[in-house]
């Protein structure tokens, strides 16, 4: 086997062989070709789906160009989030300061697009040249009468997770600013769903069928006014706990709103997400509706899944995704298709996530934190996986090695959450694993 960098060895464990806790939450190793991005990326992807806000990136052109329309987050109304605005800093501003340009950009953009609020993202260079972004935002906010929120997300200042936290802080500033709206008794916020391929709309519909009202989703199909009144909800239902747990904890502290972690991937976790909410509201009627809903959905879904399971039974999968919570659901969802997970990892998982994974997985499964292409290709080869689940950067690794691939990242165009999503997931996995093209590749 090729060399694994020795500094990375603690971040890789094999169930049944290594009895140590996995190391995680570390900064990426220089030169290791991590699949992670940066602080800015963390903030940007979390706030991005808020569709009626202006998102302005203060920095040279790259940071904005690479994140233009990067998430498949759908909006039922405004589409402002899908434009990429940047101050496009030049050497002149690096020397003399970028504040005037930032000010002018904000004024012009707010005048043209009339957003409900603006988020201004600081990039590496802003941290270095010392622009007082907060002062510019305050001034524009006073002049234009909308919130202009600085997000100090200099890329070098931590990991992607720190960017999540900054995004949560930005949302926290908005929450609680609308006290006039009354909400129904059984009201929740959905945290950590980004409405990829319209997933949020499916979930909100499930909850509606149970008699649960959604105050705000943060941030899928997000609206500034919804965020402002989010503190009126009785419960925060948190998915993608990696990014939104900070906000959930913050709201618990400030407004006493409890939260629960859920996942919407796979039948088990999806159903639990509904039951848990019914249990929270202590409503028998709601629980009955939830049971009814699950029954209806499953009665059509299970027979459909059987068709795919026939072909997929016994196949092996490797998972490498951004958040570990998603990985946990995927392991379960794959089991439902008769598939075994042989490699599982994430960019940003924490100790609890990895412990859960270790409990859940079979002996011999490799568990990895913050991996890189060399390791991933090595693990896939060692374990003889037939399928890889990951994002854009993992896709060519899978294809070059001759295994199927399922895109489970934020660019995906297929809804994979919920019951309908489970069927899409099965279809996609099946289409890739069972394609006849692999016969031309030597394995």
């Amino acid at each position, binding site marked *: 086997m090729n060399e694994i960098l020795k500094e990375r060895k603690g971040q890789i464990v094999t169930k049944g062989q290594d009895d140590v806790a996995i190391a995680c939450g570390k900064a990426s190793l220089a*030169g290791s*070709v*991590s699949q992670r991005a940066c602080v800015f990326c963390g903030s940007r992807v979390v706030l991005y789906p808020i569709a009626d806000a202006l998102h302005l990136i203060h*920095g040279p052109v790259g940071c904005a160009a690479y994140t233009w329309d990067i998430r498949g987050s759908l909006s039922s109304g405004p589409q402002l989030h899908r434009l990429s605005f940047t101050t496009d800093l*030049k050497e002149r*501003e690096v020397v003399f300061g970028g504040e005037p340009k930032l000010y002018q950009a904000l004024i012009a953009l707010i005048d043209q697009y009339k957003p409900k609020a603006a988020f201004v993202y600081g990039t590496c*260079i802003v941290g270095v040249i010392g622009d007082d972004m907060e002062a510019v935002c305050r001034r524009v906010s006073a002049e234009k009468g909308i919130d202009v929120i600085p997000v100090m997300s200099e890329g070098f200042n931590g990991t992607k997770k720190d960017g999540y936290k900054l995004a949560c802080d930005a949302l926290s500033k908005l929450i609680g600013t609308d006290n006039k709206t009354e909400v129904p008794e059984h009201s929740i916020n959905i945290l950590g769903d980004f409405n990829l391929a319209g997933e949020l709309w499916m979930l909100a519909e499930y909850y509606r069928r149970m008699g649960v009202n959604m105050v705000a989703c943060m941030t899928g199909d997000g609206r500034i006014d919804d965020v402002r009144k989010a503190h009126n909800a009785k419960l925060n239902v948190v998915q993608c706990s990696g990014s939104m747990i900070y906000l959930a904890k913050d709201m618990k502290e400030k407004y006493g709103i409890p939260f629960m972690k859920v996942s919407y991937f796979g039948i088990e976790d999806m159903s639990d997400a509904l039951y848990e909410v019914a249990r929270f509201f202590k409503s028998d009627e709601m629980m009955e509706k939830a049971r009814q809903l699950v029954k209806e959905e499953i009665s059509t879904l299970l027979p459909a899944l059987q068709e795919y399971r026939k072909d997929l039974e016994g196949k092996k999968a490797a998972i490498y995704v951004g958040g570990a919570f998603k990985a946990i659901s995927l392991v379960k969802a794959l089991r439902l298709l008769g598939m075994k997970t042989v490699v599982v990892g994430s960019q940003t998982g924490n100790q609890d996530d990895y412990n859960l994974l270790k409990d859940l997985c079979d002996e011999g499964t490799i568990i990895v934190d913050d991996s890189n*292409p060399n390791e991933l290709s090595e693990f896939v080869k060692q374990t003889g996986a037939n399928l890889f689940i990951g994002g854009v950067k993992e896709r060519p*690794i899978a294809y070059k090695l001759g295994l199927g691939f399922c895109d489970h990242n934020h660019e995906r165009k297929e809804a994979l959450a919920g019951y309908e999503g489970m069927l899409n997931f099965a279809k996609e996995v099946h289409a890739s694993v069972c394609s006849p093209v692999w016969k031309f590749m030597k394995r």
Partner: protein
Amino acid sequence: METPISKNKSTHLGSSFSPPSEGSGEASSFKSTRNACKLCAPLGASVAFKGIRGCVPIIHGGQGCATYIRRYLISHYKEPVDIASSNFSEEATIFGGGANCHAAIGNVIKQYQPEVIGITTTCLSETIGDDVKQYIRTFQELSGDKQLPHFVTASTPSYQGSHMDGFHEAVTGIVKSMAETGELGEHLNIFPGFVSPEDLRQIKTILEDFGIDYILLPDYSETLDNPIWDAYKRIPDGGTPIESVKKCGSARASIEFGTILNKGSLAGRVKTNVQATSAGDYLESTFGVENRRMPMPIGVSSCDKFFETLKEVSGKEIPLKYKKERGRLIDSYVDGHKYIFGKKAVIFGEEDFVVGIAAFLNEIGIEVVLAASGGESGHLETEIKKYCPENTDSILVKNGWDYELIHEWCTENKPDILIGNSKAYYIARDLNIPIVRCGFPIHDRIGGQRIKHLGYAGTQELFDQITNTLIGYKQDHSEVGYKYM
């Protein structure tokens, strides 16, 4: 309206709010870049480094730069694109990135055993004043007698120029670090610029058919467009070997595609106005290798220039195959001319690419109404006018434009077709205008790396596609689904 969070109206922004010392005219009308039609310099440099055999690029900056650039390139090339990062932390930003740079080099060597390491800088490392060349020297000293890879650097702060400046900066850097003087050879240097892997293969075939010995730099025809593998390769096969680049200094001549290259004004630059050198210029001034610069060979006129130059420099006859390709291309021009004449096209992308496409459209009777680029060389207009003799004065040429400016212009002026990369698809969709995807990037289709643009054969494919797109558009929108043209 809701009350803003900050009620503090006594904002004090200090003296930094005085207008910038130069270019305040631009700043006063500044509206931000909206959907940039350019990328940052380290991306271009990384692509160029991928064209050297056994090379692993390192981006000296934050982790995000490498990951974003990889993701962007992977979405186009559909290939593994390994680019390492020195992964700047706050500490490195304050105290300098030397330790991170060394760690990155060390770990890349351990993992990849590369022949070459290409280090490209970022806005961050440039601004804090990191001296990458010095870091490399220290690394070499500390390594004693250990065999190390060859190092190449490119200074690519993303606030200077676009990805094309980065690309050419890296190409020049490679040549500067490797080219040697030697006895005058028969071989030619070809600097193709930022073209597709398919184009690179095309150029190689042409030179081989001519029987000309050549050095193509960069050559990512394999590294960014691999066949399937039996086993995973940490560094993909292909690329120009160091030994070849060494011979660049003793070539008969250089042929450089693109007339703007990295020779632009780098708008917004303050420190110096020294313009960068292209690889061809460097070899000419340092080793006396004659440099033949020409637009990308797209269209009959530009291709003729390329083939005539090959003939002249090598003293060899143009192979019959290409005379026939040329003949067929012109034959098809005749077959298709009526369907495209006077159609109004908007073209966009990298400046040299835009010049190449403009010259081609001009010779087939399509009217280029807007030629736009995010690049800010200041030369685009002069170059386009030079190569578009047909409707020279009616072409609107814009340096420093973004997609939203193009969008607004198209909304008002309703062109017939968009020609360029896939990023303008949303404009085409919004305005119900057909788009022909070519250039870089192609993120919403497969095969972007296999689009052929260059030579008579590449032009043929572009011509057929553009003509059929216009014919198809008319057919789709006609009341009768007719069966003949």
